[in-house]
């Protein structure tokens, strides 16, 4: 079914169409959100919030971008806003840990390469990280990323290139082993 006619049916109050729209997009949204937050409960909360907002604002969807891109843009906005709150809470927790040096002994460099990579991805600036996860991990095109993030396609490419360079830099000490 054409996305526009599906949208029209949802706007007309067709409950089956609502479910159809949800089923068509939920997996992709959940995958991306989970990649970004790494927590099942948070990912489910953000995905639900994304669809609640999408249904509420569907009348404002004018078809300038694909429906999937429009929903992805909402999802990213929901994640960014939600993660700001989570970061603030975590920052408070970190403050508490700093107050009690016994509570959190510092770990030495992790020998596990994948964990090192995960830490390097976590350490990327949020914009680079989002583009990297969308393109290299979830397979979005630069056009889709640009539309969803409200940036130019070229900016998306540049951010991906910088993200990869930063990851290479972080993993430089292992580069010899990997290249061989």
């Amino acid at each position, binding site marked *: 079914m054409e996305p526009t006619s599906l949208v029209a049916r949802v706007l007309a109050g067709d409950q089956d169409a609502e479910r159809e729209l949800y089923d068509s997009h*939920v997996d992709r949204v959940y995958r991306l959100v989970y990649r970004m937050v790494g927590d099942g409960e948070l990912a489910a909360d953000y995905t639900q919030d994304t669809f609640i907002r999408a249904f509420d*604002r569907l009348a404002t969807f004018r078809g300038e971008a694909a429906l999937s891109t429009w929903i992805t843009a909402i999802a990213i906005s929901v994640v960014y806003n939600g993660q700001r709150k989570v970061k603030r809470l975590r920052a408070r927790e970190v403050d508490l840990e700093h107050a009690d040096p016994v509570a959190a002994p510092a770990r030495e460099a992790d020998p596990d390469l994948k964990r090192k990579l995960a830490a390097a991805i976590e350490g990327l600036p949020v914009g680079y990280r989002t583009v990297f996860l969308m393109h290299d*991990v979830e397979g979005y095109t630069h056009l889709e990323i640009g539309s969803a993030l409200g940036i130019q396609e070229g900016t998306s490419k540049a951010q991906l290139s910088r993200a990869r360079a930063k990851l*290479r830099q972080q993993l430089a000490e292992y580069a010899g082993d990997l290249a061989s």
Partner: protein
Amino acid sequence: MMDEREDRLDEWVRDAARDYNAPPPAPRAEMWEAIQAGRRAAPRPLSPFRTPLRYAIGIAALLALGIAIGRITLPSRTEAPAASPTTTAQTPTQPVPDQPTLTATPNPGSRSPAPSSGDVRERSEVAALFATGDHLTQVETFLTEFGTRPPATDFAGQAQDLLTNTRLLLDSKRVADLRTRRLLEDLELVLAQIATLNPRQRSQDLDLIADGLAQSHLRTRLRNAIPAGSAIRL
């Protein structure tokens, strides 16, 4: 040689990153139930075609509130002309001991007894509180839409309307709470930025606005300032 190594490293990173936060299957049914419940609980949104009407009603309500505050806070002026003949006809310079003074004279022609100044202040403060809550709710809705809709969407008109209301509230002495005034001042800046977005430098301006919103924690401060329920309507 170096490029080859970089390419190989990039390839390894791409492969290995697939395990990063690897998502399990989406809990479709549970999420669908939660979405349905969430939508039932939330108020139905207004049609976008009614949005200009909504803002017009908002402005009219604010104006009506301003007039109401003006009338409540100046009751003695309307009563003065009716009361003056009964007193000035006697002795204009020296009040007669048996006659009530001008301010205390009950006027048979007046609509009702004048409320005490404490009541008046309390009523106008409550009215201002309601108007502020209502306005902040509208701004929060607007900023959320602003953050999620495509960059090409034209927000200038709505921002201008909200900016006008923000300035009306800032000009009102009834909004005395310092934190609320600071919040309104910060909102004034952001709304002014959105209202005057330059179409040629749109993406740069949008980035600046987004940074400003994030740095001043405006959305969070807005949510904290909005009374529970956030559906106050005059």
